[in-house]
């Protein structure tokens, strides 16, 4: 902590010795606190929560339909990976797009957008507060930028989240992964997961 005392900057350090000495028991892999409950609407107007995605593997990407290039590229990659994984390893993964621009991304807008990428791609949007909660749970940064009259872009984290059948976070994949790296990475994660559970 940094404070001013008597007009002089003073730095207080945390006293390491007084912190807990107990060894914390946790899951062996050390799961990051990513993910959580959400209350959104799918591209058919149906209200959904995280529970609707349990029982299957899910790959989630946050973006917005008015995105010039990055979201279309990432979603194309996501769609291709879903098919590749099914062909190579037989794993079914549910692809999900969550909008970080709920003001413009209406249910209809999202529906028209997602259907162009993959028939199984589910698009989620909803109340801006609910989107904010979901983004916070997934540690997704997003902010309006490039405002031009009523138009704008949304600067946002470019990440795909692999969630296990309990909708718990397993791994994330950044923009630098191509379709093959993404597919291989996901196949390996799922195989390892299954092995650990067996």
């Amino acid at each position, binding site marked *: 902590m940094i404070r001013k005392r008597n007009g002089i900057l003073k730095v207080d350090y945390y006293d390491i010795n007084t912190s807990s000495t107990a060894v914390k028991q946790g899951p062996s892999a050390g799961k990051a606190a990513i993910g959580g409950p959400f209350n959104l609407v799918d591209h058919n107007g149906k209200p959904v929560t995280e529970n609707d995605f349990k029982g299957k593997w899910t790959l989630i990407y946050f973006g917005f339909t008015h995105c010039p290039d990055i979201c279309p590229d990432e979603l194309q990659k996501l769609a291709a990976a879903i098919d590749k994984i099914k062909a190579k390893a037989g794993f079914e993964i549910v692809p999900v797009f969550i909008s970080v621009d709920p003001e413009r991304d209406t249910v209809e807008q999202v529906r*028209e957008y997602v259907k162009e990428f993959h028939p199984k791609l589910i698009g989620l949007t909803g109340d801006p507060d609910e989107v904010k909660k979901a983004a916070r749970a997934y540690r997704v940064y997003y902010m309006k930028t490039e405002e031009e009259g009523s138009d704008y872009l949304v600067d946002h984290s470019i990440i795909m989240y692999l969630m296990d059948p309990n909708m718990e976070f397993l791994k994330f994949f950044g923009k630098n992964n191509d379709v093959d790296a993404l597919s291989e990475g996901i196949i390996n994660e799922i195989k390892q997961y299954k092995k650990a559970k067996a």
Partner: protein
Amino acid sequence: MEAYLSKYEDKIQKDVLLNARLNCYKARDAFFACLEKNGNKKATEVASVGLLYPVECKKTRELYDKTCRRTWVKHFDRQYCAKKKRLLDDNEARRGPITLPATIPKST
């Protein structure tokens, strides 16, 4: 759960969907190809975000401006500038010593 309402409810923005995107990319690429081809000409026309282009590319610029959303044009122009700047830096390897300010600002 209440259906959420949006003031954009009735309109679908088609200019962000696949066909529109592809047309925009084509127009954009034509413009940047023209820039590359005419790189030696003097850049006098104003594009956006500080990008200038030679008058030889006016036609492609107009098509690009017409086909793509303005926020997208600015985004792509900025991307192009950043790419050009990176290439210039690498080619000329202008990396000198770091300079510090002459006086250290007083802390309050």
